[in-house]
């Protein structure tokens, strides 16, 4: 295992809950690794499977999709739809060697800054153990 491996995680966070939590983690100066790249979306239900496929093909080591708790969704039920799409991707991508652990869905509420930081920390540890995404260096898109 490459000791110096620093995984890159793309996090699609919903504008209402998890983005607020991420912000809160920032303003509370809860240290969490800089491995995460936040992409704000209005709703997790907006995350097109293409985005995640693209992210993996471009070499991200993991993708986190995080939104409001069930029932909390600003848009009523977008998070439930996201959950189905994540199930789909968690079925397709592992067939081609993208470890299922690299694909995560969580609900992180606006006041859960600590949980956000913890989730990222845990993910970094987990992905470090898995090693880099195999597609990272492959000349494929």
């Amino acid at each position, binding site marked *: 295992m490459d000791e110096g491996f620093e995984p890159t995680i793309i996090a699609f966070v919903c504008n209402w809950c998890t983005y607020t939590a991420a912000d809160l983690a920032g303003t509370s*100066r809860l240290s969490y690794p800089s491995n995460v790249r936040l992409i704000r979306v209005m709703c997790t239900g907006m995350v097109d499977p293409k985005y995640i496929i693209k992210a993996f093909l471009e070499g991200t080591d993991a993708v986190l999709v995080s939104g409001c708790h069930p029932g*909390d969704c600003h848009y009523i039920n977008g998070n439930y739809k996201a959950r189905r799409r994540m199930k789909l991707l968690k079925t397709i991508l592992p067939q081609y060697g993208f470890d299922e652990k690299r694909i995560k869905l969580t609900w992180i509420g606006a006041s859960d800054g600590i949980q956000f930081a913890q989730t990222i920390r845990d993910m970094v540890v987990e992905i470090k153990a898995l090693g880099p995404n195999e597609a990272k260096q492959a000349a494929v898109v």
Partner: protein
Amino acid sequence: MKPKIGRALVVGGGISGIRAALDLAETGYPVTLVDKAPHLGGILSQLDNQFPTNHCGMCKMLPLVERDAGSQYCLRKGLFHENIDIRTSTEVVGIEGEAGSFTVRLKKQPDFVNPETCIGCGECTNVCPVEVADDFNAGLGKRKAVYLPVPHMMPNTYVIDPAACTRCGECVGVCPTGAIGLFRQGRQDFSVLVVDDEYTVRDSIKEWLEEEGFSVETAASGEEALELLTRQTFKMVLLDIKMPGMDGVEVLKKTKEIFPEMAVVMMTAYATVETAVEAMKTGAMEYLMKPFDPEDLVSKVIAVYETQEASKGEQISAGTVIFCGGTSCYDPSVGKNTFGYKQYPDVVTGLEFERLISGTGPGSGGLVRPSDGKPVEKIAWIQCVGSRDLQSGSDYCSGICCMFAIKEAMLAKEHGPDNLEATIFYMDMRTPGKTFQRFRDRAETEYGVRFTRGRVHTVYQDDKTGKLLLSYPGDGSKRIESAFDMVVLSTGQKPASGAERLAEVGDCELNQWGFAATEPFSSAETKKAGIFLGGSFSGPRDIAESVISAGSASLLASVTLHATGGGMAEVVGDTPEYIDVSHQTPKVRVLLCECGSYGNVDLEIIAVSLKSDPAVEDVLTVPGVCTAEGWDALVKTAKRKGYNRLLLGACMPYAYTRRIKDLGAEVMLDPSLMDVVDIRTPWIISTDGIPNASATQQAIIRNLKSGVSRLIGIDPLPKSSVPVIRGALVVGGGVAGMTAALSIANHGYDVALVEKETGLGGNLDWLKNTIEGWDAAAFSENLQQRVEQHPKIGRHLNSTVISSFGEVGCFYTTIETREAAPVTLQHGVVIIATGGGEAGTEAYGYGKSPAVVTQKELEQKTFSKEIDYKTIDTVAMIQCVGSREEPRNYCSRVCCASTLKHILHMKKENPDLSIYVFYRDMMTYGFTETWFTEARRAGAVFIPYTVDARPEVMVEDGASGVSVTAYEPLLEARVQVNADLLVLATGIVPTLPVSLANAFGAGIDDDGFFMEAEPKWRPLDSLKEGVFACGIALGPRSITESVATAQAAAQRALRILSKTALSRASVTARVRHSLCSLCERCIDVCPYGARSVDIDMQRVLVNATMCQGCGNCASECPNSASVVDGFFDGRMLDMIDMVLD
């Protein structure tokens, strides 16, 4: 013609204040929203989860139409609306004038930390040596004297607690932007002249005062003093009386001649007291006796300073005022405190418990014992702490604590270990809301929460185990003692701490319970015209009720503003015009704030990297954008042509919503083509705590690049809008329908009121008066008259809706009137007020004996004098007949109060009458509790029963009465009542036709009531915009409550009717028809019903007003035929690319 508008003032920024402010702002009025706290949100900023959904969702209160006018982020993070002027740390100190033209005096707490320049870095907190109890965490945990009042609030500006701050000045030194002025400008401007012949006196006074931040000059003699006074401006003089040469009194006289307003405090030794008194007559403010304590002197100066500051307080004009002052929580440590609160650390209040399990709480979310951090296995909730307690002056029910405790017990079950036991000790479990009974049942059956009837009298601590011992009465004569790890006190709501003062300022009254008094049949009207009440300021309320009452208050405020001609009309500016750049290649100008260079970030390198993207036209820097000069420089730079997208790299993107809008108007660029990227916060995100300059730089570049990418993707198409037919349809002519119709018609819009019966009035044709003694019949009559005479209201009696199509802004509804041809009405919104009626029953001998009647029949027989109470001996009453169990598993809210009303009436007629009430839980929420007490005092006997052991009724042939037998749990025996009259409380059932709801696309819940879009935050809306409901159609409620919902629903409707067209928000979905295959999957996934297929055009249409921009359609669409502005797939993929660089 420009609309006439007038300003509204909303006092209190909790839920009801925010709701009222938003309601009025969305209707087009400018609003000033003040709160004495340094943040908005009230108690809700401390509650992560709220019943009955056990989640948040506060953001659902934000504007749904004209979304761009408001903030588009978590509401707990803060609020922005272009029509709302938010003033925190501000109090109302005076209100003068009349409805339509009030002059309001505001007093703002001085800012120790300049909110304009504070960047929220938190360096100050790190160095602050003072620690005090953290009030955000309900006193659990510690915070510093300089702190973030609410951690998730934006902008995250620090504040200083003046009471705790020792003025050590540590923070001033470390603040990177110099935002902290500990001895604020105000005090430095307040210069004091100290006149004394004794050097030591002058000098020490000077030293004391300067330490407090005041400017001080000294004079050794009267002459010198007068000379200084002519040369310099002073705000205050401290004057020694006995001086050689000109003495103090003479100096005073001369000073007063030149500066009659000058505050002069005399200093004197005992011997000259008489002279001092003399000086007071000459105009001295006060005198101080030598030798004096420095603290006395300083506090006197501060008092003078603050009085002067207060009188300086800003004045604003407002046409109407809404008080949303909220409530305070009962403090169980006062009084007898038999529960050991603050004595045993594991005894906490409900609010403290909430903080304990919160992610932003002191324990970071784990459920552990505060005393030793050990996991909690047994928790007890004790209800009615400070409620229903005459000894603590609360002969009322706080209404929310039962549900609050159930919610907390459920959360505890979720957060705690699997074996966690949660027990709620209660007297009556009050679940009078729409879904509350099922919520309680779910807690019991699904979560395993234990409900134990009984009041715990004392909490002891077991010395050996440290556990808390509770003893309480069991069934019959048993006494049970049980040990718990933690005890949560369900503390009641008390009147807000400033209630008395605010009522005085507003010239309105408080009621016997200390809450703001309301007028009959209104939860929002006060004695004083133009001043209204929202939320729990007028009595304990939960979120939905607060939202409703705020809506009711804002409607009344709107009526006032409208009726008084708009009051202090402020003219809205012209709609800004933007240059059409839709055919231009995207060219982005990036402006970087130089503050960003804090921390060795090289803006040069960033600029070079950004320019590698051909779409980036140029990268420029501006100094400190947060300062006025910086902003001017930015505007100047932005005015230089050559670009069509603008990206600003600065801190706190939230702070720029309004500024970007202004900038857009100035440079004629659509604000949706501008964005702000945070180039400061990445500093905080450091690798495992170690700041890394190059990583930071990379992070900033990535953020900017994705910002660029997002901007490129924005399609600057001219905004379309949805036209509005400015008329409303109201279905149902009961009290709710009539009130809603009048509320809208009074704003000058047409209303069609459809009623299926031959006359208006609904249930008020049989309901004659209320428990408070108000005349319901007269109230209804008055409403009917006003409706009939209103030129804007068209009445359609004997009529029903047969079909409708259309969407918000334009519906076509066909109504059928008996013996007439159907007509089609065009309207912009619809309010459903179809009401409900008394449920029927076959239980308890109903129909088998004339002695068994329903509550409605009792009301009718009472007023027709058919029953002579003097001739009967015994009355039995059974509550919850068919209610609160499946299939009608909801509380009808009104029956318990109705029972009490009848008891008091019957007892008045015949004091010797024996009355026995068989009940499950008396739902006398709020002030109705007082009538419960009264009914008991009048001698009625209340006997509880459970669904497993209901009362049994025997009707004997030929007998005039019936006998009721039931188990009396305290006597542990069956008891029998031979009653002359048996009254059954059968509850309320809705009369909302399914076809009607379907016609408008509104949902119906399992019980047949109107399905609200969200039970807490949108209690009057349907998910389909433009369709609202009020009154009993929503759920069972009293007349006053129905009126409130009607007014609030009217207010929801006015948001739409007040505009000729609703414009499209910048994040809205649209369809690229040439790509669309019409698979309609987008229609299926749209939560708002904003999409439809136009068969003729073979197109999928999006109603831009109903669409909220969630993008569920876009991700469902396989080929990007459905897109959301601002989130175009091509750019999203590019952003993914960017962030991986």
